[in-house]
């Protein structure tokens, strides 16, 4: 596999077009009057203009608070859009602390400069983004949605 192909794996190209979770309506972008179980965050990468507004909804399950919905609107490169799409598929149904752990795991992988092997058991499709860590200029693209999700969660917990 060429270096470029390891960055743009087929799953990433597919996810960048699928854009799972990209259904945040225009009138929801401001994030006004959010109930206490919902958090929302806007993130911008000023270098390339990648942009995302991401909303996380949670509910009280029997065993603690879990993520019940994720919705976003954004524009950006294949890496940032695929990353948001993959994140959206991963988090629904997970406990809030599990999501925090997942974000931490993904951040460590992205900062590894290609030295860490992704754990597919934990990261699922996000493991396909591990090639990004060899391209320091693109790490921010991959992290964009995850940083937004982290901030949205912090507003709730």
């Amino acid at each position, binding site marked *: 596999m060429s270096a470029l192909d390891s960055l743009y794996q087929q799953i990433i190209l597919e996810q960048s077009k699928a854009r799972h979770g990209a259904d945040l309506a225009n009138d929801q972008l401001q994030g006004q009057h959010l109930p206490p179980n919902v958090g929302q965050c806007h993130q911008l990468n000023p270098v*390339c*203009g990648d*942009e995302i507004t991401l909303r996380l909804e949670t509910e009280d399950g029997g065993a603690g608070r879990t993520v019940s919905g994720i919705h976003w609107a954004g524009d950006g490169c294949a890496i940032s859009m695929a990353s948001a799409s993959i994140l959206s598929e991963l988090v629904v149904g997970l406990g809030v602390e599990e999501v925090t752990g997942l974000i931490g795991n993904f951040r460590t992988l992205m900062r590894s400069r290609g030295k860490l092997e992704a754990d597919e058991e934990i990261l699922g499709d996000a493991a396909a983004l591990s090639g990004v860590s060899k391209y320091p200029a693109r790490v921010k693209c991959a992290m964009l949605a995850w940083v937004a999700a982290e901030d949205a969660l912090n507003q709730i917990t």
Partner: protein
Amino acid sequence: MTVLSRQAGTHTLNEPLTDGEVLRIRNDFPILDQDVNGHPLVYLDSGATSQKPISVMEAEQEFYEQRNSAVHRGAHTLAVAATDVFEDARATVAAFIGAEGNELVWTQNATAGLNLIAYSFGNASVGAIPEQEKKFALTAGDEVLVTEMEHHANLIPWQELCRRTGATLRFIPVHDDGTLDMEAAATLLNERTKVFAFTHVSNVTGVINPVAELTSMAHAVGALVVLDACQSAPHLPLDVKALDVDFAVFSGHKMLGPTGIGGLYGRAELLDAMPPFLTGGSMITTVTMDQAQYLPAPQRFEAGTQSISQAVALAAAVNYLEETGMARIHDWEAALGQRLVSGLEAIEGIRVLGPASGIPRAGLASFEVAGVHAHDVGQYLDAAGIAVRVGHHCAQPLHRRLGLSASTRASAYLYNTRADVDAFLTAVAGVRGYFGVEVETTP
């Protein structure tokens, strides 16, 4: 002084540049002779920063090996030698843009030059304003005019100046093809306009503005003209006197020189009347505990130790450009610009920003690839050894006006060949296929 290398060979300055001569020029730029990601480097990012010929690097090294010393102070032999080459460099670079030596202020780069002007105007706008500084003073009701195609460096300093003084910032819009709306310019330039700051050449669209015409319109209403020559000084014959602008700025690193050095041109009588921005050592005559008297320009704007070796090396860069011939460089790059645009126009799914092929533009082209973000385009090209710029190129308002947030830019210089352009076009033609974007069939 050692003889600086110059391998470009002999030529007649009247004859156009040829592929053969450009290949010889490339020998003077060692960085170009390397493989990147398994492919020969195709450097098409000179709009961001240019590469440096051996003579420039040698000039800087020679300064440190033979003459390094503080300038304009000290009586020892090295100090005199350093001062001589520093001031010779000023004369060389000033002559390159058609100015006198005392009209060229060394700055860090064009951004620093524009901030120097804006902050000096700001200093002229506060407290008791001496008669000679009144032409620079801004107050509520005054207007500063820019254009919609400005680089952030020629926009934000004016936003800040207006915020501090209460003046109003206005802008001349651009047409869909990126050219300036001259009818709007005629309306927006009025008796309230105190400053008109605009770029000579757009770093995004390659549009070349009619500087002399705009300057004449501005002077007719009494406005001072500030020209951003960042994308013109390196690429075409520039004569600030013929254009009649009041101020002009440029960056050395975009014109074969080192980073950390640039120039601010100002008409002598303006520079001598303008209050300083940075104050401190080297720019004064008499200092008491209460106040200081300032040297005339250019020293009054050069507080602290300057970028001496970089100024000397910039003069070597200017010599290199003049030996090659600015008109020949401009013609060569204009042809490369047309080759870029017509080649891009022939690729399905590509939208070129700025004028269509056949209409004059600088040797650069920014474009959008339908369905593929600029960042991904740049990554794909990098894998083929092709260096381009991606993003908003420090011109967010222009991108917004043209309906996008980011674009990809290929920008050429005197060392680029037609083969460079062709390699770039071949690679661009593969982008949409690689990213699996459907090629829409025209109905």
